[in-house]
């Protein structure tokens, strides 16, 4: 079924919307959840929560790209789940590894969450990424948005793992410089 038809089902409050979403995107969303949680049960739960969140948010939302919308929900839900879990499990997931990598970009200091304007930060990162090469952009988003493993990123970027690692390292350093230049307190 086309995405627009599935969105129409949500809007008409037809519960078939969830089964159609599940049929089309279950594997895709489970992969994203598993990248973050590294646990099948938690991933399953996270994806089920995604369907509920989609049901509750469409309407009022009418996503133009359903896959991206659902991915965003899964990512947020899975990260929340990850943070609420005990820290001993952290070391296993790609999310945990990406946290370590992104630590290069920030001080990890005392700035509180309230002080950071997430929307402004997201827009700035978006502008930064548009200035990068398509290769660097794909690798960065694959690694830090979809939380794919380095091996997977290297595969779909068509490069070796070591090259992907080096490319990501350079991009993170550039991002740090860019954010500082834009006045963010890292």
């Amino acid at each position, binding site marked *: 079924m086309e995405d627009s038809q599935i969105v129409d089902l949500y809007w008409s409050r037809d519960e078939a919307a969830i089964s159609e979403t599940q049929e089309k995107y279950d594997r895709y969303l489970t992969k994203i959840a598993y990248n973050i949680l590294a646990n099948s049960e938690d991933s399953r739960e996270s994806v089920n929560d995604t369907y509920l969140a989609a049901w509750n948010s469409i309407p009022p939302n009418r996503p133009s790209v359903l896959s*991206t919308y659902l991915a965003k929900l899964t990512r947020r839900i899975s990260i929340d789940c990850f943070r609420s879990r005990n820290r001993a499990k952290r070391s296993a997931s790609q*999310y945990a590894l990406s946290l370590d990598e992104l630590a290069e970009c920030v001080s*990890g200091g005392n700035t509180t969450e309230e002080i950071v304007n*997430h929307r402004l930060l*997201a827009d700035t990162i978006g502008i930064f990424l548009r200035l990068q090469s398509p290769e660097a952009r794909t690798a960065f988003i694959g690694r830090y*948005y*979809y939380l794919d493993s380095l091996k*997977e990123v290297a595969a779909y970027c068509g490069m070796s793992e070591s090259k992907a690692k080096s490319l990501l390292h350079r991009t993170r350093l550039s991002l740090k410089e860019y954010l500082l230049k834009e006045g963010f307190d890292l």
Partner: protein
Amino acid sequence: MTVDQLLDAIGLLPPDLLAETERARAQKSRKVIHFRRYIALAASVALFLWGAWFLSLTGQGSSKEAAAGTSSPALADNAPADWDMGVVTGSSLRESSRSTTPGSFQVPILELQCGTQSLQIPSDNYTWSWSLEDGTGQGVTATGPYPPDMGEDLPVLAPEDAAVQLVWDLETPPTALTLRRWAAGSREPIQEALSAPTFQLTSGEWVYEITACWDHNTASYCFRADCPEPFLG
């Protein structure tokens, strides 16, 4: 700023930025699926080739029966009852009839001699048996397609004359000869017994089948010929 805050902000990236990466990820998935399909296909081909090789090595197949209308009526199973008879079907049987140990399993090849032309034809249908050193016997039955269905697989004789001589690469001449022929597009044969290893081509395009018998053994040979009217005198 904490790493979690940075990752949260990355989670708010606009969809158009994500689309590019999504395409790359999807293409990778398709490549993996294609690769798996290629592996499965290669495994099937390897298995098939191994089966064909094994069949040609042993000269025995596992088919239980020939497809309807494919076997020649002259190929009666006339080997001794206690002999081990295998069955070969399909297009590899021409090779299989010539590839086993010399002297043990050699279905004779027919040579058609027509004017200055000659054409060698391996058998497509045969029941062939032979004695082993220990006094027991072994045999193979091969069943090819029904001659009118062989189409382009049929050897073609370009006649220079209507008279055709039949010569086998075997010292013992056949004890019985039968000729069947099918007009183009027909599936009903015209059959006649030959009293000598020679016959006259019929005017026009025909499919011919010569069946030769040697005691327990029988072999059939098919070919196509288009004989012009003037040759018939």
